[in-house]
């Protein structure tokens, strides 16, 4: 096994997503020449719908990092940021994007072009610390950009109270005012309602798509995780809805034809934590032993339905819920969601990626592991790695653990009626 490998994809949608990725980054590159203001923001909040409704260009530096990992640009970016004094123990997204904006953004051209320099920075207070610190560094790097200091309550899902929602609503309104003042563009609230409606439709489609993975054999695996790109970058647009509708049709056909990922699906796996962006081929590794990764935690972040009758509150709630949904902020919800998924998706074993670049998702894994074993008799393994930095991934160690785990699951399957 290599440190880096690309995944084998089976869905026709995989080709379509390549086109969408290309077009999105071309749109980013050309925004300035078309007179469209560019705003950089963290993902998983209500700013994206606001941007699309106002005809602005949203850019997601966090999402650019997987692109850098996939295209082999990350090691060079790490070298730049580490030479600036950023510790190797910091999150790979942080080291990558800071390296990128201090290096290749001005010089090299990747296959997907380069990110446009921001006119606006939506700098978060809330979310995880590395993302907050990324934006602090971006403020320094791009001093001409107008900065919105966003603020969001950090609260577990089951503890959200009216004053949390009211504060988040105030922040969404404040963001709209800030953009209006900075860009001179007025918010068209009909367009915002439309964007929220499209976002909600995309979430509904996303949920339906994920539910198709409950079929045995599953019509697609985690190797196709790239389809998530539309949920990160195209929420609030018809592009996401059209793409997801096509994916759904393809899945319906595959399920009707009982067409699985591999000829003989014996073991169904769950993946916890962010994938190794430089080695999505890892998901295919289990296929050699008739195992398929049929569900993962990360995809649940896009499973938030929105009240289209109240777009502002819908965006506030989305912003409040997205990060806690997948992180240690809402540990109980996360644990319950994994246990529920394991039941619904007929999971045989769970792979916990102990991710050196993401403490908020890694913390609590041992508790979840124990609960899975105690209450559902579902075995699991820990894979030590890093979603961005391949220096923290050891293929031989992975292979040893994964092989032993799969052998155990296959043996258990034989003895379990």
């Amino acid at each position, binding site marked *: 096994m290599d440190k880096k490998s690309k995944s084998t994809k089976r869905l026709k949608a995989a080709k379509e997503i390549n086109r969408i990725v290309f077009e999105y980054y071309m749109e980013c590159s050309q925004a300035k020449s078309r007179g469209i203001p560019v705003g950089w923001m963290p993902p998983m909040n209500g700013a994206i719908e606001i941007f699309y409704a106002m005809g602005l260009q949203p850019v997601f530096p966090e999402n650019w990092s997987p692109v850098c990992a996939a295209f082999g640009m990350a090691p060079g970016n790490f070298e730049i940021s580490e030479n600036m004094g950023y510790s190797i*123990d910091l999150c790979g997204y942080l080291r990558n994007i800071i390296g990128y904006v201090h290096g290749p953004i001005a010089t090299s051209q990747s296959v997907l072009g380069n990110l446009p320099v921001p006119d606006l920075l939506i700098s978060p207070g809330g979310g995880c610390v590395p993302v907050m610190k990324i934006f602090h560094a971006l403020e320094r790097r791009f001093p001409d950009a107008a900065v919105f200091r966003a603020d969001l309550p950090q609260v577990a899902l089951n503890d959200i109270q009216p004053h949390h929602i009211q504060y988040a609503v*105030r922040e969404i309104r404040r963001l709209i005012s800030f953009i209006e003042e900075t860009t001179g563009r007025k918010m068209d609230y009909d367009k915002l309602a439309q964007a929220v409606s499209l976002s909600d439709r995309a979430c509904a489609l996303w949920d339906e798509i994920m539910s198709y993975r409950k079929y045995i054999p599953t019509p697609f695996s985690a190797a196709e995780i790239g389809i998530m790109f539309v949920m990160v970058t195209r929420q609030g647009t018809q592009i996401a809805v059209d793409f997801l509708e096509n994916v759904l049709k393809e899945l319906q056909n595959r399920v009707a034809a009982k067409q699985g990922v591999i000829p003989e699906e014996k073991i169904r796996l769950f993946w916890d934590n962010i994938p190794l962006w430089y080695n999505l081929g890892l998901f295919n590794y289990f296929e050699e032993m008739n195992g398929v990764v049929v569900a993962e935690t990360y995809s649940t972040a896009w499973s938030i339905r929105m009240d289209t009758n109240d777009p502002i509150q819908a965006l506030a709630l989305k912003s409040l819920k997205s990060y806690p949904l997948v992180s240690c902020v809402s540990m109980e919800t996360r644990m319950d969601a994994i246990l529920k998924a394991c039941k619904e998706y007929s999971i045989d074993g769970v792979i916990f990626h102990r991710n050196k670049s993401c403490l908020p998702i890694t913390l609590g894994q041992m508790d979840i592991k124990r609960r899975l074993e105690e209450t559902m008799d579902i075995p699991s393994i820990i894979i030590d790695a890093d979603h961005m930095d391949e220096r923290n991934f050891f293929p031989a160690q992975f292979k040893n653990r994964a092989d032993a785990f799969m052998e155990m699951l296959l043996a258990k399957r034989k003895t379990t009626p």
Partner: protein
Amino acid sequence: MTFDQIDGFRQAYEKRSQVLNELHAQGQKIFGYFCTYTPIELLAACKVLPVRIMGGRGKTEQCYNLLPEFICPFMKRSLEKALAGEYAFLSGIVQSYSCDAVCGCQAVWKNNFPDISLYSISLPYNDNPPARDFYVEEFQSLIKKLGQTTDFSFQEALRQAIAQYRKIREAVLMIYQYAQSGFLDISAEKMWYIVQAGFVMPPDSYLDLLNQQIREKRKTPVTTEKQIPVIVSGSEIGHPDILSYIEQKGGRIIWDDHCTGIRSFEPEAGCGNDPLECLVDRYMKRLPCASRSRAEDRWPEWDRRLQYENVQGVIFILQKFCTPHLSDIPYFKNQLKNNGIPSIVVEMDEGWEVSGQIRTRIDSFLDMI
């Protein structure tokens, strides 16, 4: 409870488990907190004794059954101690999202110590009127969760608690100032114990001890001219050996930007129309920590120190894997360089040992200055 003034602070710190277990047995409700953004005045007003959960020096074994290796010594050691039963006196924890590590660890504590109730508070990152209103609402929500109402008697209790902690902070800052100016003979190690004792002692006993210390003030100061004035900065310092070593080698710590130092003591209290507003004002204005602020927002206090004090160097004493402080290092090193101030970063693990490598680096650094 009385302590010998000579080593009273150290005694209080080292005998904290015994004392706190006794108080717990007598029916005193004790709540823990990890971070100094927790409003301890509010807990005191709810008749709860706030006690800071600390890591300190020691082994880490059992905690790895629940935590990854790549988390700070503070969180590892705290959990290790809790698993060994050293926090059995706690009936609750009040904590905000200080950083990813604390947020995740409080969830781990919640899963593994069901007898300890967890109260999470969300603190705003901005300071503006809506953020302050939200802050008040969040405190009101906590008061309600703790079974209290914000009636007149509670307001009065809160007013008294604020007044008491104001006196404590004033006293600590006075001792710190006297130590800096040579009116009190207090080493960095002793100052560390003075601060730590405050995190684990009942406030009235602590204030008595502080006042005894203040009365030791000399009439004329001791000269410190031959020492090298340095600043130390980071998050929690789990053991004072590293501070003592800096002093042994000729350094004099003239200011510390640590949460086990005096970062959380300024300002002593806040202003407002009612006690809750005062409390919010105080926590909004406190010296910022890297976990909740921009490096640029921390810099003005540093700049003031560099302007008015003869700082010769900065030693960043960081916990391994501390994302908030590690992220701010490039900015600070750059700013210091622009001001002609040399700096080094040392990273400490849970042993808090001043290893040969660290000694060599500190020796060379101070020699160079």
